[in-house]
């Protein structure tokens, strides 16, 4: 087995995906939505998100096998959540 096969698309934590695909990253305090006039680029309000992520991490630790998580897991073939 190649190293690539060993590591490819494995063990990607939820938080890692959120941190990467959301504009400013989870740990940075964002301000309000930035909307560039006329261009319509919309970025998320990270202040709201930080607390949401913190809640999520806690619930991840406490309810790993909750119904929601199982459902999410089935839906996501690439992303594997970790406690």
């Amino acid at each position, binding site marked *: 087995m*190649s*190293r*690539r096969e*060993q*590591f*490819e*698309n*494995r*063990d*990607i934590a*939820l*938080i*890692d*995906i*959120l*941190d*990467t*695909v*959301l*504009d400013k*990253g*989870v*740990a*940075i305090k964002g301000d309000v*939505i930035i*909307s560039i006039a*006329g*261009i*319509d*680029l*919309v*970025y*998320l*309000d990270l202040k*709201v*998100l930080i607390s*949401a*992520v*913190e*809640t*999520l*991490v806690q619930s*991840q*630790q406490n309810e790993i096998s909750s119904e*929601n998580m199982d459902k*999410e897991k089935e*839906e*996501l*073939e*690439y*992303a594997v959540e970790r*406690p």
Partner: protein
Amino acid sequence: MEELLYLYGVTWKEEAQETDMTQWRGVDDSHHLFHIELGNLAAVVSFVDESEFGEEVLEEKTNEMEWLRKKAFRHHEVLLQLNDGMTLIPMKFATIFKKEENLQHKAAVYETEWKIILQQLQGTEEWNVKIYNRSDLLKEHTAARHPEVMKRKEDIAQMSKGMQYLQTKKLDSFIQEIVSQEQETYAGNLHHRFKEFCVDTNSKKVWNKNVTGKDEEMCWNGAYLLKKEQVEPFLEQVTTAQENGRDAGWMIEVTGPWPPYHFSDTKTVSGVEG
């Protein structure tokens, strides 16, 4: 109902033409993907309903963690799929235009930068490496193997009981000092070793334990852009580092290939080095 354009990424026109993406569904799990040609480039997009992705609605939706989690995942999933077959400048979650005209306008502004980035990304992959440490194991390891510590231990064994007590305490703080230094330099050294395989690297935010939910401390979080042929030797190096570090409490996590999120920033292009 109004429809908005959700932008996933930008690629070369030819690569978009060669990829049949019409069967793939977008971030809303409903509308299909298509591309819009922008000169030699192409934007990969799908329609989304304003009732779900309009700016004001989106502000509300960010309060709904379930919605956000699902959509952010879906966004990432679409990008993984796209990234598998084409050179791609990935967009962040919720990059949305009201109409094609606005997207064309944006493209005109960034065309030159996007082309430079796409050339840099040609034939590359992004991988991420996180380095964690368990300081208790590192301390144990240091106490058992560090040559200076071992020498001092031998010296202490020859001393009187009173001296032994004092010197052992001194030795403890010496070990602690070594551990701290080690944590600082170890991750840095590994990064430099990994860097040799890379076209470019980027440091990411190091998360605290509240965010990671791990017992180990995160010491390094980095993104690595590699030529495809360098991926295997790079991962071999990572594996070696994993094995070498295990006993001393080091944990190295590698994930990928990622869409090149960390090497697609238009703002960095003008000031790019080398």
